[in-house]
Each structure stands twice: as C-alpha cells, then as structure tokens.
C-alpha cells in the first residue's frame, strides 16, 4: 500500500487486518496461493481454508447491476462461490425495488439457506428483513450498504468512502506538496448519496494537511459517462488552470476523460475512483492525465462469500486470532498507480 495512514483506532486496526485478508482473497482469487494464507493462526481454532468442509448454502441478494461496479460485485460473488466445492450459491435476480428485494430475501429465508449475503438496494429500508433473517437463525453478511441496526447483521463488510477521499487527497497532496498555490478540483458522484458526501469529506480533510493546496471547484456528476462528460466539460471551461483532479468514479471518468480530450487539456494530474479496468489500463499506459485511482474494491463480494462460508462452517478467519469472524470489516481504499497497477489489473471491472 503506497500511502500508509497512522492507524489510530481499533477500527484502524481492523482496516489493516482486512486489507491483509482482502489482499489474500485477491491473490487467491486470481493466481497462486499466497504465503499469507499458509501462516496458521496463533492458536488452534479452525480457520477457514480451501479444503472442502461442511456443505454451505449461501443466499445472495444484490441490487440491479446497472453499473459496472455492481456488475463486478455479482461476478466476484459467483466466481468465488464456484471455487468452493462445498458452497452452493442461491443468487437472486438483482433488483433496485426495495419491496421486490425484501420479497427475494424472504424467499431465501424460507428456503432455509445457511447464510445470507445481502447488498441492499437501500440499507435503511432493508433493515427489517435483515433482522428477520437473524431472528430466523440465518446469519447475515451485510455487504457495503449498511443496515440501520447492528442486530440485523452478523458481519458487515464494505468499502471505506471516507478513506477513499482521504487517500485520494493524500496521493494528490504528496504529488503537489512542492508546488506553490496548487489548485485542485473535484468531480463528485451523485450528490444526494451519503457516500458522495463522505468521499468529499475525506478528500477535504486530507487536503487540510497541505496548506499550499486549494480546492477551487467541485461539481457533482451522476456516476454516468454522459454526466461525467457534461460536468467535466463545464469544469474545464470554468478552470483554465489547475493542477490536479479527483474524480469519484471511474465510470463517469470515461466521460470526464472524453471531455478532457475534447478540450485538448493535459496540464494536470487526474486521480480516479473505484478501480475500473479501463482506468487501470490508462494508468499502465501512462499516456494521459489519469495517473492513479483509489479503490473501492468489488472483490468485497468475494470476501463476503468467504466470510459466509466460514460462518456456515463455524470457523474463524485465517490470519486473525479470534475464534469468530469479525463483526465489521472496512476495506482499505488502496491507491493504484503505475507502480502497482499490474497487481490489481485482474480485479478491474468493465
């Protein structure tokens, strides 16, 4: 990880642990068995491993995959489940309709799956059905969009929106720290989403560490290519000179890059967000403004399957001393730039 943060809290510690295990899952998912995995825990409790164990049926309910990232979530979950001979995955048709998703989850509860993995279309609205599953004795892995009540899930695993902004800010800060009166702009995602506010907050907080840098403009796009192009074009017109740009989302970044190309601008550095394959390829090629992207890894779905399997087999997580899997895992938003892009290339989503 290129930019290490001071880990100040217990949550911070979990970050680190999760980052390690996430890394393990990643490599596990792609190629060779990582050496991390072979390290036994410091005690003798059974940690989840690849050896076939008790058969587990996992119910998976996610929103409609109308965005590259969500599509990657589904792919990661499916691929991960296929990897285990002892896991049966019951995956629902993705839906953005709260009522429909509740219905789908209730069906899974009635089918008596062993563990549920839920990425709610709307975390608040689906809390009740999460509670229902837990009361029915089916442990719930809450993926990314968090339920209202901790009672509604056994374990939450998700990305770190605040950390995403923070890491993007630090990366840009380090790159510009020797430049006087540096100017930075931000192309945010959908403004009415909480996560957009968290990302912006993290970004702003990080920039506070660099008094020479000023954020001069921010516009919100809508996570779509079309809106990315439109808003970026306006931003470029509004700001004839700036040094760095952080774009919250690589999907809208396709449009933003198009606008930058159309305006013929190349006088700044751009950092993306999420981790799309197209962004990784551009970073690797290093022939444009895009120099890095901050991860919001869809591999979390694979990790969720691992956690679900561990729960179903009453095991802990490798690499941790505890008998039980953690109650909450926040993934680390790593910065991917030219130096480490090869490592992440296979996780990039289309």
């Amino acid at each position, binding site marked *: 990880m290129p930019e290490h943060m001071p880990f100040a809290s217990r949550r911070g510690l979990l970050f680190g642990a999760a980052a390690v295990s996430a890394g393990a899952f990643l490599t596990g998912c792609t190629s060779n068995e990582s050496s991390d995995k072979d390290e036994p825990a410091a005690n003798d409790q059974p940690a989840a491993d690849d050896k076939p164990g008790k058969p587990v049926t996992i119910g998976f309910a996610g929103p*409609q*995959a*109308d*965005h*590259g990232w*969500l*599509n990657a979530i589904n792919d990661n979950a499916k691929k991960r489940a296929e990897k285990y001979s002892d896991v049966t995955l019951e995956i629902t048709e993705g839906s953005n309709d709260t009522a429909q998703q509740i219905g789908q989850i209730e069906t899974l509860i009635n089918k008596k799956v062993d563990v549920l993995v839920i990425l709610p279309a709307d975390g608040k609205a689906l809390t009740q059905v999460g509670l229902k599953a837990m009361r029915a004795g089916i442990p719930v892995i809450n993926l990314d969009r968090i339920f209202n009540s901790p009672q509604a899930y056994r374990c939450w695993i998700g990305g770190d929106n605040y950390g995403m902004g923070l890491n993007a800010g630090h990366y840009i800060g380090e790159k510009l720290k020797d430049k006087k009166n540096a100017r930075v702009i931000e192309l945010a995602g959908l*403004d*009415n989403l909480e996560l957009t506010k968290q990302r912006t907050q993290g970004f702003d907080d990080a920039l506070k560490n660099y008094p020479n840098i000023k954020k*001069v*403009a*921010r*516009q*919100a796009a*809508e*996570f*779509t*290519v*079309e*809106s*990315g*192009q*439109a*808003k970026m*074009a*306006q*931003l470029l*017109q*509004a700001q*004839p000179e700036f040094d760095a740009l952080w774009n919250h989302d690589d*999907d809208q970044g*396709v*449009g933003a890059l*198009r606008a930058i*190309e*159309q*305006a*013929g601008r190349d006088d700044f550095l751009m950092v993306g967000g999420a981790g*799309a394959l*197209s962004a990784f390829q551009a970073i690797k090629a290093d022939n444009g403004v895009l120099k890095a992207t901050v991860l919001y890894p869809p591999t979390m779905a694979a990790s969720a399957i691992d956690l679900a399997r561990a729960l179903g087999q009453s095991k802990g997580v490798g690499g941790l001393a505890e008998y039980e899997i953690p109650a909450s895992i926040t993934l680390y938003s790593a910065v991917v730039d030219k130096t480490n892009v090869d490592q992440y290339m296979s996780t990039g989503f*289309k």
Partner: protein
Amino acid sequence: MTQPVSPPRDDRTGKVPPAGQAPAWRAVWSRADVRTLSLLGVLAVLVLIGGITKPDQFLDTRNLQLVLTQASVIGVVTVGMTFVITSGGIDLSVGAIVALASVWATTVATQEYGFGGILFTSIAVGVGCGLVNGVLIAYGGMVPFIATLAMLASARGLALQITEGRTQVVTVPSVLDLGERDAYVLGVPPLVLVFGVVTVIGWLLLNRTTFGRRTVAVGGNAEAARLAGIDVRRQRLYLYLLSGLCCGIAAFLLIVLSGSGQNTNGNLYELDAIAAAIIGGTLLTGGRGTIVGSVLGVLIFTTITNIFALNNLQSDVQQIAKGAIIVAAVLVQRRTASTT
C-alpha cells in the same frame, strides 16, 4: 346582444387588406412574439449574469461552443417531443430510447461495421421504438402516457441487458473524431450543426407543411380533426415515429459526445424535454407548439447549468433553480394566455 347582425360591407369589392395591417392579425401574432421575446429576455438576463459573474470564462467562444454542444443532444430530443406534445400526446420514453439506441449502436458487433453501422443502428433503434409507441397508441388505443411509460421501462431494461451495466467504449476513430475540436466546421461543432439542421427542419415541418397542420389539428381538437377528414390515427403513428427518429439522432450525438454507450444514458431526458417544450410555449394540452420556443427553453436550461457550473454552485441549488424557472415560466404563460 353581443353580436349584432353585420351590416353589409360596402367595400366587398375593395382590395384585400395586406395581412400585416390588420389589427387582429397583429393580435394573433404579437402574442407568439411576446412569448418568444420573453424567452429571449430570460436568455439575455442569463447571459448578463454569466458575463458579470464570470466574464472571462463565460463570454468566450469556447464556452459558446460548449453550451451549444451540451444543448444539442437534449435539443434534438426536444424537437421531437414538441411535435408529440403539440398533438396532445406525451412521450415519456425518449430518455430510455436514447439509452437503448446508444448501447445497441456501441456493442462490439455493431462497432465492427464502423461509422455507418453505429449511425444506422442508432437511428434504426430509435425509429423502431417510435414505431412500437405509435402503433400501440394510434392503433392499439393505448393512452400515450401508459404506452410510452411501458416503453420507458422495457427500453431501459433491454439497454441494461445488452450492457450488463458496463460502459461500452467506442473504438471507431471516425466516430470519436466527430466530437473533437478538429472536426469543427468554421468554429461550429458538428453536433451543433446537426442540432441546427434538426431545428430548421422541425420548424419548417411544423409551420409550413400539411404534416404540421395535421399535428396542430389533432392536438387542438382530435374529434374535429377526425370529422374534418384527417386520418388522426395515422398522424399519431407518424408523430411517435418522428419522436423516435429524433431520439435515434440524439443517441448518435451522445455517442459522439461521450465516446461511449451506457444504459444510464438519457437519464431523465423525458422531463428535461417536456420542461423545455412547455417553457417554450407549447401547450401541454396540445393544439399549439413552437419549435423556436422549445429550442430557447433548452438553451435557457443549458445556460443555467453552465453559469452554475462556472460559478461552482452545487447541484442542489441547480435543481431548485430549475424547478423555480419551470413554475415561473408556466405561470407567466398562463397569464399571457388569460389576458389575451
């Protein structure tokens, strides 16, 4: 008695008064003029605000090119929508059709056929969706609101199925080049050129052809149009076809502009197009439509967005302002309608 028997006029053999001199003629046309002038006034105020707040960035050729380019895609959609609304209908599916056409035209398979393949597919999908809308409404007897709402849902669904949520990046250089600065014709971006041509054709079609007259007649009084011998159903079919065609053209423009196709394209175009048309002076109840007004409506919205972005105001403020302008424009329109 409000209407006395007209005395026989003594100048029955007299010369025909030139149209421009008749006061009543003036009354009819000045109303339309007042509406157009008020829209131009709003635009002028916006330009003033933009010029004062951000003189360097706003009053700039590049910015003019930018505003017009951003207006082109929704502008073409709005021209089609104006016809539909003038006929007393509504097309809620425009955004979804743009999305479907843009993703269909940017699949790997389509891109193999190059520029022509992308252009043809965009337009064919647009016209195809318009045909379905038209047949359902004109011959299936469905209410336009419902039929096009159904099209909205299914076209978006199909677009999602094609892309699986992925962004389809265009790799055909000739298409991409059209959106670049090098392709500008005498400083006019090709997109804006297309928008201009569509506007002029739309204006001529509405104001100078039998097609336009039938559209207005159907919207003003469908029963009277039918009893006057107009084939109302066929006219309706053509109107939704036309709207679909405009969506297809807009989809191609959007592909050029964004260099990609995505199932989220054309998000809420239906609302933007309806709002622009209504602000422009097209009656939501049908019977009166104005292409010039619609285009001015689009330009007003695009200019507002531009000014807000240049001044770094956030999207919540933008949305509030947009809503306020719609309400204000409709109120003004009602006032002018009731006082004349």
